[in-house]
């Protein structure tokens, strides 16, 4: 993979990250009953090492929709014991050490680095995920089937978490202890606290539009993730991933990613790639460089096997960003949009500068600018027939891009 890496485009990131954001999952062969659904759910938890860290409310099954619904899923895990599987982690690190030879700033590795930088601050403290419901539905089998996963009402609060021993600590847990006191301490500081605060992996994923929350400070936002992956027996398939941001119940904005596949690996295989990608992020909690290698490896593995017809991304809504920009403009009327990005922390990393055309970028900052100016950001890729996604992206450019 490293050989062909160049500055060409990395749309692949979008596809794969969409998948990994949810942690993925697929239907077991005979998945028509509650028992099978439950078995799948147990398997899902086991695969992603969630057994010890996921706390759940009621689990219900609807025969009509085929949905298994887990109410109030909550994950608390400190990076010290991510998934309680340190051994596993070390093994993975060793496995991918060899990939270090690649030039890390380029291509896929650059994208992987961006993904990890977005989630990690000084260091990753752990994962705190809380949502209203997790819904899993699946039908068919690995060759001809459909996966539908929804995470409803994921809270975007708590971008920073800390830990005490192996326990995850939220700001609200220790509010009184860490907030600035009325009097300064003897050494002139506002508070005396030895917690080290780091990123919460769950709410920093760029693919969920976390940067749109972080740039407006709308930490009351909840996000609905709705992911569907479908494959027919001839190998063709479709993917749809909808991210909806809500504030106090009303819809703020929406990110839609869609792909049509000429040829999709069997769902079993996709699932394996997803697991590797997730591992990449978790390994990144320990060593961002190794995590980067793992993530890039997983994604390229998927890209080599998939052939994509077309892929599109669209962001729409997100009016609070426009409001934030207006407020910024009042203070600094002559500043450029880049200055706003700088102020609110929108990244200017673009997956490609060269191949996308002069005036197009898919950086957070560029997406933000389009949203402010046009209320939407759109990208649509059409791929030439017959080439793998990897070849189309990295070997020779074999796609056309339309943007708004």
């Amino acid at each position, binding site marked *: 993979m490293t050989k062909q890496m160049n500055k060409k485009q990395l749309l692949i990131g979008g596809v794969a990250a969409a998948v990994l954001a949810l942690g993925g999952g697929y239907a077991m062969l005979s998945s028509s009953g509650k028992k099978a659904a439950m078995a799948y759910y147990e398997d899902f938890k086991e695969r992603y090492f969630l057994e010890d860290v996921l706390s759940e409310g009621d689990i219900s099954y609807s025969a009509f929709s085929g949905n298994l619904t887990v109410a109030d899923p909550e994950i608390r895990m400190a990076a010290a014991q991510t998934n309680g599987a340190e051994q596993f982690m070390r093994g993975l690190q060793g496995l991918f050490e060899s990939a270090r030879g690649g030039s890390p700033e380029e291509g896929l590795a650059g994208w992987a680095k961006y993904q990890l930088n977005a989630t990690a*601050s*000084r260091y990753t403290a752990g994962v705190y995920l809380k949502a209203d419901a997790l819904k899993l539905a699946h039908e068919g089998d690995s060759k001809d089937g459909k996966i539908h996963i929804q995470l409803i009402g994921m809270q975007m*609060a708590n*971008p*920073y978490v*800390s830990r005490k021993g192996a326990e995850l600590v939220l*700001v609200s847990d220790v*509010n009184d202890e*860490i*907030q*600035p006191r*009325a009097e*300064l301490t003897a050494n*002139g*500081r*506002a*508070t*005396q*606290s030895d*917690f*080290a*605060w780091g990123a919460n992996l769950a709410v920093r994923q760029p693919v969920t539009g976390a940067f749109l929350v*972080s*740039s*407006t*400070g*709308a*930490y*009351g*936002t909840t996000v609905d993730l709705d992911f569907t992956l479908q494959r027919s027996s001839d190998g063709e398939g479709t993917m749809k991933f909808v991210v909806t941001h809500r*504030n*106090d119940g009303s819809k703020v904005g929406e990110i839609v990613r869609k792909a049509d596949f000429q040829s999709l690996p069997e769902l079993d295989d996709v699932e394996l790639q997803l697991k590797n990608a997730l591992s990449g992020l978790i390994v990144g909690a320990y060593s961002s460089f190794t995590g980067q290698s793992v993530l890039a490896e997983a994604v390229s593995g998927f890209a080599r096997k998939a052939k994509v017809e077309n892929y599109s991304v669209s962001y729409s809504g997100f009016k*609070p960003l426009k409001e934030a920009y207006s*407020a910024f403009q009042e*203070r*600094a*009327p*002559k500043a450029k949009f880049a200055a706003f990005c700088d*102020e*609110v*922390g929108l990244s200017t990393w673009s997956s490609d500068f060269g191949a996308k055309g002069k005036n197009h970028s898919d950086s957070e900052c560029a997406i933000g600018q389009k949203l402010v100016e046009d209320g939407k950001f759109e990208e649509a890729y059409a791929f030439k027939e017959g080439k793998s996604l990897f070849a189309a992206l990295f070997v020779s450019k074999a796609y056309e891009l339309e943007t708004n």
Partner: protein
Amino acid sequence: MQITDAAGCKWVLSTSTISDGDNLAFGATPAMPCPASGFGEGSFEKLSWKVPGTYRGDNWSRVYVHPSTLIFNKNLEAAVKNKAVAYLSPEADQAAFLVGEIPARQMKVYLAFQRSNWGALRPFSNDPYYVAVTPDESFALDAAKYREAAVEVFELIKATSPSTTDVATLLIAKNLSAIAANGWNDNAQKIVRNRIGLNRNSLFFDVREGTNWTAQREQQRLREERQRQAELARVHTRVLARYEQLQAGMGEFKGRETEALAQMAGITVRIGSPLALQDPGSSASVAPMMVHVTGKKGDFYNIDFPSKGRLVAEEEFGEGWYVARVANATPYYPLEDGRAIPTYRAYGVGEPQPCKQDKCADQVSFGAVLAREFPGAGIDFSWTPEVSQRFVNDWKNASAQVQ
């Protein structure tokens, strides 16, 4: 050490020759007529003292005992008789007698006598030298004034002590104690030392001779002044270069110059990104921030600069601009409409003082920025480029003069 002899006369002798319990035998020719004071005084053909049974003792011929008990050779009687001792060194080897004053120069003029302080003290036998004391040393920097002062001093001596006009050392100092310890003491008290007196009835004096401490100090001061000047010129050349650089950078901040300056002076004028504000790790440090308070609502003061937000404070803030020392408290207060509001806790000493101008323009200046970057260059708030230019020019002019 003061001793009373058999005739009831008191004597002062060096402690180094007499031990406690020694019996002393004194002799005087003619006999010592102790006056009312009890101290020996007057002219004697011969004075002797001896510790019986030892070799310790001495005898002196033709001496004059001054009422202070200091003993002089007979030929010095005229010079010290009827004059008071103005100064006696701790070792009793230096004595000064006031001969007169020159009020216009705030100057007192003395005759100073010196003897060896090794072993037993003997009568003063050397011719005196001349001492003048004045707080004003400026005359020493100008040859003509120096000569004028020296001659004036000598004229006074000639008039009041006609027996002591030979060429002798003239020491002019700021304090009489400068004559102690044979001049091994601090030169800081001394002004000039030279020789003056009548030689074959004409005045001998040469301003170019001798030692001129005041002139040395002045030269040293000038040297240091030049070094300081050179150093200042060097620093201020850099200050001016930095100023040019800052000015060039200001283009970007058109209309927001005050903010840019405040920022450079270490005053926060823009807040972190909303994500950064959520980091509890950022809330321990306290730093000055420029805020515009627009009112009070509940427990919070509302601010609209550096951004819309809130201030929590124990002190009372009126509406207006402030430079307040604050810590980030954003993560600890509830969201408003699902949005985090930048919130700061202010720490003050006493009642907060509002700025006098919008955006605290009265509290920021190029001077404030440069003073921070060049501590010790003597830059203050009201600095202008002319201030630094003056330092550079001063040095240029000074160098030109030297060449």
